[in-house]
């Protein structure tokens, strides 16, 4: 083989861009249209209205889903109310068994759910396959076990279910957010009406099938699809006693206002602008991975994304060099390809929001770096991006972009790092990278955020409480703390 070293390298480059390795989709059946899941079965919407849900990677319509109106939501809430009597009086161990069953069914249908999630939302299949779906099953499994042990979670108190929970979830982790909402609610004996996000309703429709397969009593789980208006109908329905919302801070405020004075219980899991802080003694190569995972995971559509990199000035240069090099190895493209690192932006609207904020960053004087990256012609895409020369006052350093865009700022001392990290109305998460144990704890103590990842980032587990400080919301999901929002204590 008389080929030169240079040719070999060129060849290697082509080969290790990897031939397409698409996940098989022939075993997936997406219905051309879906109704609403009310009272244990799929029913046609009273509204007679439908809207398309598209694959953001191709802009092709995947299915049409119903848009629930006031009558539909009322039916769903009434079904949930009717089911509440029997569900809340069912023996706790039976409730547990239903939840265990659901967890198992999610595992059994995991590949189907992963593919549906990826097609409907645009996230890389390796993430839906390795993160979203396994964590969803794990969440049901974890809370299943709590169903008949609630009195041990609240010593000296008698926990009782609240009633019908109205739950509205976002499009970034559709099934996982559904699991975070439904599992603890059901474990505690509540029934639910859930509204999935407008752009990602399909995995919830598969979940409706799973509820039927599990023979879950009718009305315990009801799923109504629609846009923001449907969501408002759900949370403001007078028979809904408990409201749980995950989404933007803007909408969270509207909900808090809308239900003021109603006595409804409320938990909110809202936006973030997390600082990922790298000290000069950090394990740099792992820090780079953590930074990448922190902001480019799920295209940056993550409320706890590490969107502000705070790097100690003394290592800013080598760190940025490593980071830029690493960015160039990220593969953007077909979300169904097993080697894709960065999938499609969830919607055109979100893409435009990201584009607008990135433009503002350039206008305000930050320096934009994007690796060479060919964007597919159809669909919604944004290359992994990194801003340097960012001031704390720039919009890109203050506003949640919810896209694959990192703002890099520097600091000199630990105190300065804390001050800059906390200088935001948000407080969902933070990252710290340092080799010094006492400094990790010192930082963890001072960072005003609900989750602090030290020498790691974006880890999730059903046993680990998640939720924000300040405008990132209140209440915790996960762990024993995640039960509290769904019980009355007497």
């Amino acid at each position, binding site marked *: 083989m008389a080929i030169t070293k240079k040719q070999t390298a060129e060849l290697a480059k082509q080969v290790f861009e990897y031939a397409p390795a698409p996940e098989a989709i022939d075993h997936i059946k997406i219905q051309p249209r879906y109704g609403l899941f009310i009272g244990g079965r799929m029913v046609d919407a009273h509204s007679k209205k439908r809207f398309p849900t598209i694959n953001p990677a191709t802009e092709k319509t995947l299915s049409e889903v119903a848009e629930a109106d006031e009558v539909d939501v009322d039916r769903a809430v009434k079904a949930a109310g009717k089911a509440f009597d029997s569900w809340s009086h069912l023996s706790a161990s039976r409730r547990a068994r239903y939840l265990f069953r659901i967890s198992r069914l999610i595992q059994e249908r995991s590949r189907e759910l992963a593919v549906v999630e990826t097609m409907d939302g645009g996230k890389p299949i390796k993430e839906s396959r390795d993160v979203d779906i396994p964590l969803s099953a794990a969440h049901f499994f974890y809370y299943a076990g709590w169903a008949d042990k609630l009195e041990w979670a609240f010593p000296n*108190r008698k926990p009782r279910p609240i009633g019908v929970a109205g739950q509205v979830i976002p499009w970034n982790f559709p099934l996982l957010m559904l699991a975070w909402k439904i599992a603890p609610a059901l474990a505690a004996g509540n029934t639910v009406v859930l509204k999935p996000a407008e752009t990602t309703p399909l995995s919830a429709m598969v979940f409706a099938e799973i509820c039927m397969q599990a023979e879950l009593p009718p009305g315990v789980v009801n799923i109504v699809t629609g846009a923001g208006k449907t969501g408002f109908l759900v949370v403001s329905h007078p028979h809904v006693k408990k409201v749980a919302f995950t989404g933007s801070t803007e909408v969270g405020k509207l909900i808090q206002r809308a239900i003021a004075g109603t006595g409804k219980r409320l938990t909110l899991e809202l936006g973030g602008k997390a600082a990922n802080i790298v000290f000069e003694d950090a394990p740099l190569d792992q820090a780079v991975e953590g930074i990448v995972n922190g902001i480019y995971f799920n295209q940056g559509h993550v409320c706890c994304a590490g969107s502000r990199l705070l790097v100690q000035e003394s290592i800013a240069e080598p760190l940025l060099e490593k980071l830029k090099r690493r960015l160039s190895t990220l593969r953007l493209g077909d979300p169904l390809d097993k080697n894709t690192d960065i999938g499609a932006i969830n919607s055109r609207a979100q893409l435009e929001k990201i584009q607008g904020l990135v433009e503002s960053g350039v206008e305000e004087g930050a320096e934009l770096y994007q690796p060479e990256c060919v964007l597919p012609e159809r669909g919604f895409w944004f290359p992994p991006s990194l801003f340097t020369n960012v001031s704390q006052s720039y919009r890109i350093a203050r506003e949640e972009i919810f896209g694959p865009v990192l703002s890099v700022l520097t600091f000199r001392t630990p105190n300065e790092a804390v001050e800059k990290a906390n200088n935001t109305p948000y407080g969902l998460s933070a990252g710290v990278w340092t080799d010094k144990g006492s400094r990790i704890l010192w930082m963890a103590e001072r960072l005003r*955020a609900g989750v602090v990842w*030290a020498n*790691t980032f974006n880890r999730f587990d059903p*046993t*680990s*409480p998640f939720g924000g400080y300040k*405008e990132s919301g209140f209440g915790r999901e996960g*762990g024993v703390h995640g039960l509290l929002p769904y019980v009355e204590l007497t």
Partner: protein
Amino acid sequence: MDVRKTYKLFLNGEFVRSESGRAYRPDGSVNVPRGSRKDLRDAVRAARTAFPGWAARTAMNRGQILYRAAEMLDGRAAQFLELLGGGVRARRALDQSVEALVWYAGWTDKLPQITGTVNPVAGPYFNFTIPEPTGVVAIVAPEESPLLGLVRRLAPALCGGNVVIALAAESSPLAALTLAEVLATSDVPAGVVNIISGQRKELLPTLASHMDVNAIDVAGCNGNEVKAIEESAAGNIKRVIKLTQREQSPHLIAAFMEMKTVWHPIGV
């Protein structure tokens, strides 16, 4: 001829008149400062400044200070009984107030052991959750229980390391303003508790909409007030604490707390 006391606001560890220069006479005789929006602003500023230091105190130290407050309150029993109108009800309110301070004094160093957790995550990570104070907390004393109603919220809030802006009961503010004297002599650092008297109608909207107040306890508010407060609270996603007035439990302390979860890999 007795030397009368001038009642003042308790603001940043000092006894001051309202910056507005206004006063009102809730019982028809004694002048009480009618706190203004600017007094609240100053109180929040003082509280915010005091917050990191108070939160960083050791749990035992906070416990000792709360216990000291119980000692001081008990030592002024006669004065408070008089302020509360005497009789069995006053006696009970005072006793229960002292008891609440003692009870919560003993909780400072136990709450994290009850509400904190070590979480067995599926991976090589050490993961724990601990309660941390939410920050600046507004408390509205109930009109019908001007001392006990206030102490029962103040103590758990302080217990967890929060700093407080308390609104004295409008119709009977003297107990709250005198409680300030108890706190001032109990080593409570300046700004940690600020007590403002005045008209709820005027002050509640300011408290509820203040962007630097993290939580507001509405146990002392009526339905309409709660609705208005909740609407304003949305401006900065304030925690609105609605547990019942009589609640005395670690859950009430926890209601003023944030749960922080920390992850760290386990490796060699």
